[in-house]
């Protein structure tokens, strides 16, 4: 009997290092942006120089510290009520991160479950789920969120609920299609032949193959959740009025955009960098997580 040896040295010093290499610059930049955002949110009370709600009408609309007329006590200036813009930006990150993490995860769980079920059962189960997704997607998502938030009432829970209810379709659609593709593969029938049940096949064989896809979607969805939260707070139906949010800051800054442009520009910058951060992070993770390197 001919013995088979590994004909080439398979170099994989560590799956972590290899993964990080595959992820490349995207992974790094994304991870740093996301990490900064999350840290800022977690440590808000420690790093914010002022109470975000503390008003100081004597020093309203101060420009950032480095502009002439700025006050070094207010690094990024103050808004029209004399509240510290930097502190408000920092506290706003808490709402944004909470919404991004919770809403995106819940939407993912619901969407993945329905997608797997629809993709594997086929038949009328698939028909019902697919039509539901179609109908859902025909409705403008932001409008649906606004209606929902208005109906359920303001608050963190209703913002999250509004996003979950709208965005599970994103996951369900993609997971359903990919489940169908994977179930056609030989390894899926091989799994049936070793006696795995449908649930077992989905959980042990199909789901691991969906991980790179789901991770990318999840990161993109977190970015989208931040945007939706911004829109809702911009219209004023997000969390309670006294909690600082980026959307709320834009709405306030909009009225004095000519006199004090930084009040509006700074939260916009925060939003852009966090959404880009999540997208890059997701992209990088997808490359890092995929051992087959389907590029």
């Amino acid at each position, binding site marked *: *009997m*001919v*013995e*088979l*040896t*590994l*004909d080439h040295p*398979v170099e*994989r010093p560590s799956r972590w290092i290899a993964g990080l290499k595959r992820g490349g610059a995207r992974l790094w930049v994304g991870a740093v942006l996301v990490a900064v955002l999350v840290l800022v949110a977690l440590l808000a009370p420690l790093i914010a120089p002022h109470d975000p709600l503390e008003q100081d009408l004597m020093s309203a609309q101060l420009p950032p510290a480095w502009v002439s007329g700025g006050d070094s006590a207010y690094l990024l200036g103050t808004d029209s009520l004399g509240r510290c813009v930097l502190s408000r930006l920092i506290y706003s990150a808490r709402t944004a991160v909470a919404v991004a993490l919770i809403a995106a995860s819940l939407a993912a769980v619901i969407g993945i479950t329905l997608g797997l079920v629809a993709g594997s059962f*086929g038949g009328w189960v698939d028909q019902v789920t697919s039509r539901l997704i179609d109908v859902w997607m025909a409705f403008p998502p932001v409008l649906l969120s606004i209606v929902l938030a208005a109906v359920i009432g303001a608050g963190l829970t209703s913002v999250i609920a509004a996003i979950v209810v709208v965005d599970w379709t994103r996951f369900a659609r993609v997971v359903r299609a990919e489940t169908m593709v994977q179930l056609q*593969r*030989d*390894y899926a*029938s*091989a*799994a*049936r*032949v*070793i*006696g*795995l*049940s449908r649930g*077992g096949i989905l959980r*042990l*064989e199909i789901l*691991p*193959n969906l*991980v790179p896809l789901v991770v990318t979607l999840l990161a993109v969805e977190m970015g989208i959740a931040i945007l939706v939260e911004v829109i809702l707070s911009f219209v004023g139906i997000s969390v309670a009025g006294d909690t600082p949010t980026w959307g709320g800051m834009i709405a306030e800054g909009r009225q004095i955009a000519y006199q004090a442009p930084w009040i509006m520009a700074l939260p916009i910058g925060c939003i852009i960098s966090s959404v880009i951060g999540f997208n890059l992070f997701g992209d990088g993770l997808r490359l890092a997580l*995929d*051992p*087959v390197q389907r590029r």
Partner: protein
Amino acid sequence: MTAVLAVRDLHVAIYDRSHAINVLRGASLEVGTGEVRGLVGESGAGKSMLGRAVLGLLPANAVIGSGTVQFEGRDLIAMPEPERRNLLGRRIALIPQDPMTSLNPVKRVGSQIVALLRHHLALSKGDALERATELLVEVAIREPRRVLELYPHEISGGMRQRVLIAMAFACDPSLVIADEPTTALDVTVQRQVLQLVERLRQRHGAAILFVTHNLGVVAKICRTMTVLHAGRVLEEGETADVLTRPRHPYTRALLAATPRADRPAEALCPVPPALIESLWSEARRLDRQSAMAAP
């Protein structure tokens, strides 16, 4: 000799929208304990369908019209799903056709073997890993511990095929269905695979149903053989008898069409079209008969 597998008068049709295409027209077959039976036939003869029917892997639009499939005296078709799943992979195993796609691409070789072992045998993780290592040694893979750590795309096709053979025999099955396991391999590797299958069969005492279109392979390892055409059994018996004294004209024609090293290539003659045509018209006549017999 008691039969491990007894297929009797099996009819299978595939439904294509409105009309049915018969793929098995009353095929019967027996595999005794420890017997190696070759199942030969040209493309479309229904040999793979027969194997798939035994494994419960028929496509969703295939319907078993009549007939029984008995495994160790128990009816596989009437058996409830969980009970059949308990047999699959443990008592009945498959060596799949394509080694390149039959392993899950995102799971390590080791974890796939361990999952199979633990699914059917109550083994601890450590014991299962130990057993997986032994199995790889048995199929003559050097450095089994390292191979277990690798992903399928990191090992060669020949090695993947050996891993799949090891998995088929992992739980000491009494029947292994080999679905053209040598077709995707080149001739030099084919020989090794046949030797390996024969060695594992002897060691684990399994019966084998060897599905192939290669008469050379049948002559080498099968003691008995069945010739299938258009979903019907044309001839069966001891391999030596069938190959030296074929009774059916189709078998004779097949033998004449098989290239052999001891004959000049000019001596090859294709299976006469008239013979094929007469066999198909016979099959169609049977179809009409059964269609009339049905209410």
